[in-house]
Protein backbone atom coordinates (compact mmCIF):
# COMPACT_ATOMS: atom_id res chain seq x y z
CA UNK A 1 0.00 0.00 0.00
CA UNK A 2 2.77 2.43 0.89
CA UNK A 3 6.17 2.68 -0.69
CA UNK A 4 9.19 4.21 1.01
CA UNK A 5 8.54 7.57 -0.62
CA UNK A 6 5.27 8.19 1.14
CA UNK A 7 6.18 6.87 4.60
CA UNK A 8 6.65 9.71 7.07
CA UNK A 9 8.69 8.94 10.15
CA UNK A 10 7.29 10.39 13.38
CA UNK A 11 9.61 10.62 16.38
CA UNK A 12 8.47 9.59 19.84
CA UNK A 13 8.16 12.04 22.73
CA UNK A 14 10.86 12.16 25.36
CA UNK A 15 10.29 9.65 28.20
CA UNK A 16 10.65 12.57 30.60
CA UNK A 17 7.42 14.09 29.24
CA UNK A 18 5.29 11.81 31.40
CA UNK A 19 4.35 13.43 34.69
CA UNK A 20 1.44 12.08 36.70
CA UNK A 21 2.41 14.41 39.52
CA UNK A 22 1.72 17.53 37.45
CA UNK A 23 -0.52 19.70 39.57
CA UNK A 24 -4.16 19.77 38.57
CA UNK A 25 -4.29 23.55 39.00
CA UNK A 26 -2.00 23.83 35.98
CA UNK A 27 -4.64 22.44 33.61
CA UNK A 28 -7.98 24.24 33.58
CA UNK A 29 -9.53 21.64 31.27
CA UNK A 30 -8.77 18.69 33.51
CA UNK A 31 -9.80 20.70 36.56
CA UNK A 32 -13.18 21.34 34.99
CA UNK A 33 -13.61 17.76 33.86
CA UNK A 34 -13.10 16.68 37.48
CA UNK A 35 -15.48 19.40 38.66
CA UNK A 36 -18.19 18.18 36.29
CA UNK A 37 -17.80 14.59 37.48
CA UNK A 38 -17.95 15.78 41.11
CA UNK A 39 -21.15 17.72 40.39
CA UNK A 40 -22.66 14.73 38.66
CA UNK A 41 -21.63 12.40 41.49
CA UNK A 42 -23.76 14.44 43.91
CA UNK A 43 -26.83 13.40 41.92
CA UNK A 44 -26.07 9.67 42.21
CA UNK A 45 -27.61 7.48 44.92
CA UNK A 46 -25.24 7.10 47.92
CA UNK A 47 -24.39 3.46 47.14
CA UNK A 48 -23.10 4.44 43.70
CA UNK A 49 -20.82 7.26 44.82
CA UNK A 50 -17.02 6.89 44.85
CA UNK A 51 -16.51 8.48 48.25
CA UNK A 52 -13.57 10.46 46.89
CA UNK A 53 -12.73 13.60 48.85
CA UNK A 54 -12.57 16.44 46.29
CA UNK A 55 -9.59 17.96 48.12
CA UNK A 56 -7.55 14.81 47.50
CA UNK A 57 -7.62 15.27 43.71
CA UNK A 58 -4.54 17.43 43.38
CA UNK A 59 -2.54 15.91 40.52
CA UNK A 60 -3.18 14.58 37.01
CA UNK A 61 -2.66 11.04 38.24
CA UNK A 62 -5.21 11.42 40.99
CA UNK A 63 -7.64 13.12 38.64
CA UNK A 64 -7.31 10.17 36.26
CA UNK A 65 -7.95 7.68 39.08
CA UNK A 66 -11.11 9.52 40.05
CA UNK A 67 -12.27 9.90 36.44
CA UNK A 68 -11.74 6.16 35.89
CA UNK A 69 -14.01 5.36 38.84
CA UNK A 70 -16.72 7.71 37.62
CA UNK A 71 -16.49 6.46 34.04
CA UNK A 72 -16.91 2.90 35.30
CA UNK A 73 -20.08 3.94 37.11
CA UNK A 74 -21.53 5.73 34.11
CA UNK A 75 -20.26 3.37 31.42
CA UNK A 76 -20.22 -0.08 33.03
CA UNK A 77 -19.95 -2.01 29.76
CA UNK A 78 -16.43 -0.71 29.20
CA UNK A 79 -15.51 -1.31 32.83
CA UNK A 80 -16.62 -4.95 32.58
CA UNK A 81 -14.71 -5.51 29.35
CA UNK A 82 -11.46 -4.31 30.89
CA UNK A 83 -11.46 -0.99 29.14
CA UNK A 84 -12.35 -1.91 25.58
Amino acid at each position, binding site marked *: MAGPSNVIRVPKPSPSSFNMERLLV*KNSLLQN*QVKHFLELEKTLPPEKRTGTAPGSITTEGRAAEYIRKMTDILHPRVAKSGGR
Partner: protein
Amino acid sequence: MPAGLDNLKHIVVLMMENRSFDHMLGALKKQDPRINGLTGTESNLDTSNEPAKVQPLAEFQGQLDPDPDHHFPAVHKQLYAGTTGPPATPSMGGFVQSYHDQRKDVNHSRQIMYYFPPEKLPVLTTLARSYAVFNGWFSSIPGPTICNRAFAHYGTSFGHVDMNLFYQKTPFLSIYDRLLKAGKTTKLYYYDRASSTMEIVNLLKNQPKIFATFPQFLDDCKRGELPDYSFVEPNYSDHLGEGGGEELASDQHPDHDVQAGEIYIGQVYNAIRQNPDLWKSTALLIAYDEHGGIYDHVPPPSCLPDGFTATEQQTGVPGQPFPFDRLGVRVPAVLVSPWIPKATVVPGTEDPANGRIFEHASIPATVTKQFLGTYNERSPREKAALTFLDLLSDTMRPDADCPVFNFA
Protein backbone atom coordinates in the same frame (compact mmCIF):
# COMPACT_ATOMS: atom_id res chain seq x y z
CA MET B 1 -22.62 14.19 -7.41
CA PRO B 2 -18.80 13.79 -7.35
CA ALA B 3 -17.61 10.19 -7.03
CA GLY B 4 -15.93 11.05 -3.73
CA LEU B 5 -19.24 12.03 -2.20
CA ASP B 6 -20.96 9.09 -3.85
CA ASN B 7 -18.51 6.72 -2.13
CA LEU B 8 -18.68 8.44 1.25
CA LYS B 9 -20.06 6.23 4.03
CA HIS B 10 -18.28 7.50 7.14
CA ILE B 11 -17.35 10.84 8.66
CA VAL B 12 -14.78 10.89 11.47
CA VAL B 13 -13.98 14.01 13.50
CA LEU B 14 -10.91 14.16 15.75
CA MET B 15 -10.97 17.22 17.99
CA MET B 16 -7.71 18.25 19.62
CA GLU B 17 -7.09 20.90 22.27
CA ASN B 18 -6.01 24.49 22.55
CA ARG B 19 -3.63 25.48 19.77
CA SER B 20 -4.05 28.33 17.29
CA PHE B 21 -3.67 28.06 13.52
CA ASP B 22 -0.54 30.21 13.37
CA HIS B 23 1.10 28.31 16.26
CA MET B 24 0.75 24.96 14.47
CA LEU B 25 0.48 25.73 10.75
CA GLY B 26 1.49 29.40 10.35
CA ALA B 27 4.96 28.46 9.10
CA LEU B 28 3.47 26.74 6.04
CA LYS B 29 2.98 30.12 4.37
CA LYS B 30 6.66 29.98 3.39
CA GLN B 31 6.02 26.69 1.54
CA ASP B 32 2.76 27.79 -0.04
CA PRO B 33 1.79 31.48 -0.09
CA ARG B 34 -1.88 30.51 -0.44
CA ILE B 35 -1.82 29.38 3.19
CA ASN B 36 -2.75 32.33 5.39
CA GLY B 37 0.04 31.86 7.90
CA LEU B 38 2.84 34.06 9.18
CA THR B 39 5.16 36.38 7.29
CA GLY B 40 7.49 36.51 10.30
CA THR B 41 6.92 40.21 10.94
CA GLU B 42 3.77 39.91 13.06
CA SER B 43 4.13 41.17 16.62
CA ASN B 44 2.35 42.22 19.82
CA LEU B 45 3.56 44.82 22.28
CA ASP B 46 4.74 43.39 25.58
CA THR B 47 4.10 45.14 28.88
CA SER B 48 7.26 47.20 28.50
CA ASN B 49 5.94 48.44 25.13
CA GLU B 50 8.56 46.49 23.18
CA PRO B 51 7.38 44.53 20.14
CA ALA B 52 7.36 40.76 20.66
CA LYS B 53 7.66 39.18 17.24
CA VAL B 54 6.47 35.77 16.16
CA GLN B 55 9.36 33.30 16.15
CA PRO B 56 9.68 29.63 15.11
CA LEU B 57 10.79 28.62 18.59
CA ALA B 58 7.80 26.66 19.93
CA GLU B 59 8.75 23.62 22.00
CA PHE B 60 6.77 20.44 22.52
CA GLN B 61 6.49 21.07 26.24
CA GLY B 62 7.66 23.43 28.95
CA GLN B 63 7.00 26.86 27.44
CA LEU B 64 3.29 27.33 28.07
CA ASP B 65 3.27 26.89 31.83
CA PRO B 66 0.97 28.08 33.27
CA ASP B 67 -1.80 27.14 30.88
CA PRO B 68 -2.47 30.40 28.97
CA ASP B 69 -5.77 31.95 30.00
CA HIS B 70 -8.45 31.44 27.36
CA HIS B 71 -11.59 32.29 29.27
CA PHE B 72 -13.84 34.97 27.81
CA PRO B 73 -12.29 38.04 29.55
CA ALA B 74 -8.74 37.01 28.65
CA VAL B 75 -9.66 36.32 25.03
CA HIS B 76 -11.43 39.69 24.93
CA LYS B 77 -8.12 41.29 25.90
CA GLN B 78 -6.15 39.19 23.41
CA LEU B 79 -8.47 40.28 20.60
CA TYR B 80 -9.26 43.89 21.41
CA ALA B 81 -6.15 45.39 23.07
CA GLY B 82 -5.74 48.97 21.92
CA THR B 83 -9.29 49.23 20.56
CA THR B 84 -12.61 50.27 22.02
CA GLY B 85 -13.82 46.66 21.83
CA PRO B 86 -16.69 45.33 19.73
CA PRO B 87 -17.86 46.25 17.17
CA ALA B 88 -14.32 47.37 16.32
CA THR B 89 -12.26 44.94 14.28
CA PRO B 90 -10.09 42.87 16.66
CA SER B 91 -6.49 44.12 16.78
CA MET B 92 -5.09 40.67 17.72
CA GLY B 93 -2.68 42.75 19.78
CA GLY B 94 -3.22 41.61 23.37
CA PHE B 95 -1.86 38.06 23.50
CA VAL B 96 1.46 38.90 25.15
CA GLN B 97 -0.08 41.29 27.67
CA SER B 98 -2.78 38.74 28.52
CA TYR B 99 -0.17 36.03 29.15
CA HIS B 100 1.85 38.46 31.24
CA ASP B 101 -1.15 38.82 33.57
CA GLN B 102 -0.54 35.27 34.77
CA ARG B 103 3.19 35.06 35.62
CA LYS B 104 4.20 38.75 35.53
CA ASP B 105 7.33 37.77 33.62
CA VAL B 106 7.92 39.86 30.50
CA ASN B 107 10.31 37.45 28.78
CA HIS B 108 8.09 34.48 29.47
CA SER B 109 4.98 36.27 28.19
CA ARG B 110 6.62 36.75 24.76
CA GLN B 111 6.62 32.97 24.22
CA ILE B 112 2.88 33.13 23.48
CA MET B 113 3.99 34.39 20.02
CA TYR B 114 6.11 31.30 19.27
CA TYR B 115 5.15 28.90 16.49
CA PHE B 116 6.33 25.51 15.28
CA PRO B 117 8.57 25.06 12.24
CA PRO B 118 6.86 22.47 9.99
CA GLU B 119 9.53 19.81 10.51
CA LYS B 120 8.63 19.62 14.21
CA LEU B 121 5.04 18.66 13.35
CA PRO B 122 5.44 16.05 10.60
CA VAL B 123 1.96 14.60 11.00
CA LEU B 124 -0.22 17.71 11.06
CA THR B 125 1.78 19.60 8.45
CA THR B 126 2.00 16.59 6.12
CA LEU B 127 -1.75 16.10 6.29
CA ALA B 128 -2.34 19.83 5.77
CA ARG B 129 -0.12 19.81 2.67
CA SER B 130 -1.43 16.47 1.36
CA TYR B 131 -5.16 17.07 1.71
CA ALA B 132 -7.21 20.21 2.50
CA VAL B 133 -6.24 22.90 4.97
CA PHE B 134 -8.76 25.57 5.96
CA ASN B 135 -7.51 29.16 6.12
CA GLY B 136 -10.76 30.21 7.75
CA TRP B 137 -11.84 27.69 10.38
CA PHE B 138 -12.56 29.54 13.63
CA SER B 139 -13.52 28.38 17.09
CA SER B 140 -17.20 29.07 17.68
CA ILE B 141 -16.80 31.32 20.73
CA PRO B 142 -13.96 33.58 21.94
CA GLY B 143 -13.71 31.42 25.03
CA PRO B 144 -12.72 28.05 26.46
CA THR B 145 -13.17 24.35 25.68
CA ILE B 146 -16.55 23.19 26.93
CA CYS B 147 -18.68 25.82 25.19
CA ASN B 148 -16.67 25.45 21.98
CA ARG B 149 -16.93 21.66 21.94
CA ALA B 150 -20.68 22.08 22.51
CA PHE B 151 -20.94 23.66 19.07
CA ALA B 152 -19.41 20.51 17.57
CA HIS B 153 -21.91 18.29 19.36
CA TYR B 154 -25.10 20.40 19.34
CA GLY B 155 -24.49 23.30 16.93
CA THR B 156 -24.84 25.69 19.88
CA SER B 157 -23.62 26.13 23.45
CA PHE B 158 -27.13 27.01 24.66
CA GLY B 159 -25.96 30.49 25.68
CA HIS B 160 -22.82 29.43 27.60
CA VAL B 161 -19.42 31.07 27.16
CA ASP B 162 -17.56 29.27 29.93
CA MET B 163 -16.41 25.93 31.32
CA ASN B 164 -19.41 25.38 33.56
CA LEU B 165 -21.48 22.29 33.27
CA PHE B 166 -24.45 22.96 31.00
CA TYR B 167 -27.63 21.17 30.18
CA GLN B 168 -28.92 20.54 26.71
CA LYS B 169 -32.09 22.46 25.94
CA THR B 170 -34.71 21.40 23.47
CA PRO B 171 -35.35 21.58 20.59
CA PHE B 172 -31.70 21.34 19.62
CA LEU B 173 -30.73 17.67 19.78
CA SER B 174 -27.14 16.55 19.66
CA ILE B 175 -25.93 15.30 16.31
CA TYR B 176 -25.81 11.81 17.88
CA ASP B 177 -29.49 11.92 18.91
CA ARG B 178 -30.49 13.11 15.48
CA LEU B 179 -28.65 10.26 13.80
CA LEU B 180 -29.96 7.59 16.17
CA LYS B 181 -33.53 8.77 15.75
CA ALA B 182 -33.12 8.39 12.00
CA GLY B 183 -31.77 4.85 12.32
CA LYS B 184 -28.17 5.88 11.57
CA THR B 185 -25.13 4.75 13.53
CA THR B 186 -22.78 6.91 15.59
CA LYS B 187 -20.11 6.62 18.29
CA LEU B 188 -18.07 8.90 20.54
CA TYR B 189 -14.72 7.28 21.14
CA TYR B 190 -12.89 8.43 24.26
CA TYR B 191 -9.29 7.40 24.85
CA ASP B 192 -9.72 5.20 27.92
CA ARG B 193 -11.61 5.05 31.21
CA ALA B 194 -9.17 7.33 33.04
CA SER B 195 -9.32 9.99 30.33
CA SER B 196 -13.03 9.61 29.54
CA THR B 197 -15.01 12.32 27.78
CA MET B 198 -15.70 16.02 28.10
CA GLU B 199 -19.40 15.36 27.42
CA ILE B 200 -20.20 14.02 30.84
CA VAL B 201 -23.73 15.00 31.77
CA ASN B 202 -25.75 15.27 28.60
CA LEU B 203 -24.21 12.34 26.78
CA LEU B 204 -22.13 9.96 28.95
CA LYS B 205 -24.66 9.89 31.79
CA ASN B 206 -27.74 9.74 29.62
CA GLN B 207 -26.50 7.80 26.60
CA PRO B 208 -23.57 5.59 27.57
CA LYS B 209 -24.39 3.26 24.68
CA ILE B 210 -23.00 5.70 22.12
CA PHE B 211 -19.56 5.69 23.78
CA ALA B 212 -16.60 3.41 23.14
CA THR B 213 -12.86 3.58 23.72
CA PHE B 214 -9.95 4.30 21.38
CA PRO B 215 -8.88 0.62 21.22
CA GLN B 216 -12.42 -0.07 20.02
CA PHE B 217 -11.99 2.64 17.35
CA LEU B 218 -8.85 0.90 16.12
CA ASP B 219 -10.69 -2.44 16.04
CA ASP B 220 -13.68 -0.92 14.28
CA CYS B 221 -11.38 0.54 11.63
CA LYS B 222 -9.58 -2.78 11.16
CA ARG B 223 -12.83 -4.69 10.77
CA GLY B 224 -14.49 -2.02 8.65
CA GLU B 225 -17.20 -1.50 11.24
CA LEU B 226 -17.04 2.23 11.79
CA PRO B 227 -20.44 3.86 12.31
CA ASP B 228 -21.76 6.51 9.96
CA TYR B 229 -20.41 9.26 12.21
CA SER B 230 -17.58 9.02 14.74
CA PHE B 231 -16.23 11.66 17.10
CA VAL B 232 -12.81 10.87 18.59
CA GLU B 233 -11.41 12.41 21.77
CA PRO B 234 -7.71 12.41 22.74
CA ASN B 235 -6.16 11.42 26.07
CA TYR B 236 -6.58 14.34 28.44
CA SER B 237 -4.08 13.31 31.16
CA ASP B 238 -0.80 11.57 31.98
CA HIS B 239 -1.87 8.43 33.82
CA LEU B 240 -1.28 4.71 34.19
CA GLY B 241 -3.13 2.64 31.62
CA GLU B 242 -5.12 -0.58 31.87
CA GLY B 243 -1.95 -2.69 31.98
CA GLY B 244 -0.06 -0.35 34.28
CA GLY B 245 1.97 1.30 31.52
CA GLU B 246 2.48 5.03 31.13
CA GLU B 247 -0.21 6.75 29.06
CA LEU B 248 0.98 10.16 27.90
CA ALA B 249 -1.66 12.85 27.36
CA SER B 250 -2.23 13.28 23.63
CA ASP B 251 -4.63 16.24 23.64
CA GLN B 252 -1.87 18.85 23.06
CA HIS B 253 -3.43 21.02 25.75
CA PRO B 254 -0.63 23.13 27.27
CA ASP B 255 1.60 21.95 28.88
CA HIS B 256 1.09 18.43 27.53
CA ASP B 257 3.60 17.11 25.01
CA VAL B 258 2.67 18.17 21.46
CA GLN B 259 4.57 15.22 19.99
CA ALA B 260 2.25 12.77 21.77
CA GLY B 261 -0.65 14.48 20.03
CA GLU B 262 1.14 14.19 16.70
CA ILE B 263 1.35 10.44 17.19
CA TYR B 264 -2.32 10.26 18.16
CA ILE B 265 -3.40 12.15 15.03
CA GLY B 266 -1.21 9.82 13.01
CA GLN B 267 -2.72 6.73 14.65
CA VAL B 268 -6.25 7.86 13.85
CA TYR B 269 -5.24 8.58 10.25
CA ASN B 270 -3.30 5.33 9.81
CA ALA B 271 -6.19 3.27 11.18
CA ILE B 272 -8.46 4.60 8.43
CA ARG B 273 -5.77 4.72 5.76
CA GLN B 274 -4.71 1.09 6.21
CA ASN B 275 -8.15 -0.40 5.52
CA PRO B 276 -8.63 0.08 1.75
CA ASP B 277 -12.43 -0.08 1.86
CA LEU B 278 -12.59 2.37 4.75
CA TRP B 279 -10.02 4.67 3.18
CA LYS B 280 -12.05 5.25 0.04
CA SER B 281 -15.32 5.72 1.95
CA THR B 282 -14.28 7.95 4.87
CA ALA B 283 -13.68 11.66 5.38
CA LEU B 284 -11.57 12.55 8.43
CA LEU B 285 -11.67 16.06 9.86
CA ILE B 286 -8.95 17.06 12.33
CA ALA B 287 -9.84 20.26 14.17
CA TYR B 288 -8.79 22.05 17.37
CA ASP B 289 -11.49 23.19 19.79
CA GLU B 290 -10.00 26.63 20.50
CA HIS B 291 -6.74 28.55 20.44
CA GLY B 292 -5.78 28.12 24.09
CA GLY B 293 -4.71 31.74 24.50
CA ILE B 294 -1.98 31.37 21.84
CA TYR B 295 -1.39 34.01 19.16
CA ASP B 296 -3.08 34.04 15.77
CA HIS B 297 -2.92 36.99 13.39
CA VAL B 298 -6.36 36.75 11.72
CA PRO B 299 -9.18 38.78 13.32
CA PRO B 300 -12.21 36.55 13.89
CA PRO B 301 -15.15 37.71 11.77
CA SER B 302 -18.67 38.49 12.87
CA CYS B 303 -21.35 35.85 12.41
CA LEU B 304 -25.07 35.30 12.66
CA PRO B 305 -26.24 35.65 16.32
CA ASP B 306 -27.19 32.35 17.89
CA GLY B 307 -30.48 33.36 19.49
CA PHE B 308 -28.92 33.40 22.97
CA THR B 309 -27.25 36.23 24.88
CA ALA B 310 -24.66 35.79 27.63
CA THR B 311 -24.97 38.65 30.12
CA GLU B 312 -21.98 40.76 31.14
CA GLN B 313 -21.97 38.84 34.42
CA GLN B 314 -21.61 35.64 32.41
CA THR B 315 -18.94 36.98 30.06
CA GLY B 316 -17.02 38.55 32.95
CA VAL B 317 -16.32 41.66 30.84
CA PRO B 318 -17.98 44.83 32.21
CA GLY B 319 -20.34 46.39 29.67
CA GLN B 320 -19.95 43.44 27.29
CA PRO B 321 -22.87 41.07 27.01
CA PHE B 322 -22.33 38.57 24.18
CA PRO B 323 -25.05 37.74 21.62
CA PHE B 324 -22.90 35.07 19.96
CA ASP B 325 -22.47 37.32 16.95
CA ARG B 326 -18.73 36.83 16.36
CA LEU B 327 -16.43 33.86 16.23
CA GLY B 328 -13.49 32.88 18.39
CA VAL B 329 -9.83 32.69 17.40
CA ARG B 330 -8.80 30.72 14.30
CA VAL B 331 -7.74 27.11 14.81
CA PRO B 332 -6.05 24.43 12.69
CA ALA B 333 -8.48 22.31 10.64
CA VAL B 334 -7.58 19.72 8.03
CA LEU B 335 -9.91 17.53 5.98
CA VAL B 336 -8.48 14.18 4.86
CA SER B 337 -9.76 11.93 2.09
CA PRO B 338 -8.17 10.31 -0.96
CA TRP B 339 -10.81 12.16 -2.99
CA ILE B 340 -9.36 15.56 -2.08
CA PRO B 341 -6.88 17.01 -4.60
CA LYS B 342 -3.37 17.24 -3.18
CA ALA B 343 -2.46 20.53 -1.43
CA THR B 344 -5.96 21.96 -1.39
CA VAL B 345 -6.11 25.28 0.42
CA VAL B 346 -9.59 26.50 1.34
CA PRO B 347 -9.44 30.30 1.34
CA GLY B 348 -10.70 32.27 4.33
CA THR B 349 -11.06 35.91 5.29
CA GLU B 350 -7.93 36.89 3.29
CA ASP B 351 -9.94 36.35 0.11
CA PRO B 352 -13.10 38.50 0.27
CA ALA B 353 -14.35 37.19 -3.07
CA ASN B 354 -13.90 33.45 -2.58
CA GLY B 355 -13.16 33.01 1.12
CA ARG B 356 -15.26 30.58 3.16
CA ILE B 357 -15.71 30.79 6.92
CA PHE B 358 -16.12 27.62 8.95
CA GLU B 359 -16.65 27.08 12.66
CA HIS B 360 -17.47 24.06 14.83
CA ALA B 361 -21.19 24.28 14.01
CA SER B 362 -20.05 23.28 10.51
CA ILE B 363 -19.49 19.78 11.94
CA PRO B 364 -23.10 18.89 12.86
CA ALA B 365 -24.24 20.89 9.83
CA THR B 366 -22.13 18.71 7.52
CA VAL B 367 -23.02 15.42 9.21
CA THR B 368 -26.71 16.35 9.14
CA LYS B 369 -26.60 17.29 5.48
CA GLN B 370 -24.81 14.07 4.53
CA PHE B 371 -26.79 11.56 6.55
CA LEU B 372 -30.15 13.22 7.29
CA GLY B 373 -30.77 15.76 4.55
CA THR B 374 -33.29 18.42 5.48
CA TYR B 375 -33.48 18.88 9.25
CA ASN B 376 -35.05 22.00 10.65
CA GLU B 377 -34.68 21.91 14.46
CA ARG B 378 -31.20 23.38 14.59
CA SER B 379 -29.66 26.51 16.07
CA PRO B 380 -29.44 29.63 13.89
CA ARG B 381 -25.65 29.31 13.89
CA GLU B 382 -25.73 25.73 12.69
CA LYS B 383 -28.26 26.51 9.98
CA ALA B 384 -25.97 29.28 8.74
CA ALA B 385 -22.77 27.21 9.03
CA LEU B 386 -20.99 26.17 5.84
CA THR B 387 -20.50 22.47 5.14
CA PHE B 388 -17.28 20.99 3.79
CA LEU B 389 -17.89 17.79 1.85
CA ASP B 390 -17.94 19.64 -1.47
CA LEU B 391 -14.13 19.42 -1.22
CA LEU B 392 -14.37 15.76 -2.25
CA SER B 393 -13.76 15.41 -5.98
CA ASP B 394 -14.41 12.89 -8.74
CA THR B 395 -10.90 11.47 -8.67
CA MET B 396 -9.44 9.12 -6.09
CA ARG B 397 -5.74 9.60 -5.60
CA PRO B 398 -3.45 6.57 -5.90
CA ASP B 399 -2.01 4.98 -2.76
CA ALA B 400 1.51 6.14 -3.55
CA ASP B 401 0.28 9.73 -3.44
CA CYS B 402 -1.12 9.42 0.10
CA PRO B 403 1.24 9.39 3.10
CA VAL B 404 1.46 6.77 5.85
CA PHE B 405 3.02 7.48 9.25
CA ASN B 406 5.66 5.31 10.84
CA PHE B 407 6.12 5.79 14.58
CA ALA B 408 9.78 5.00 15.01
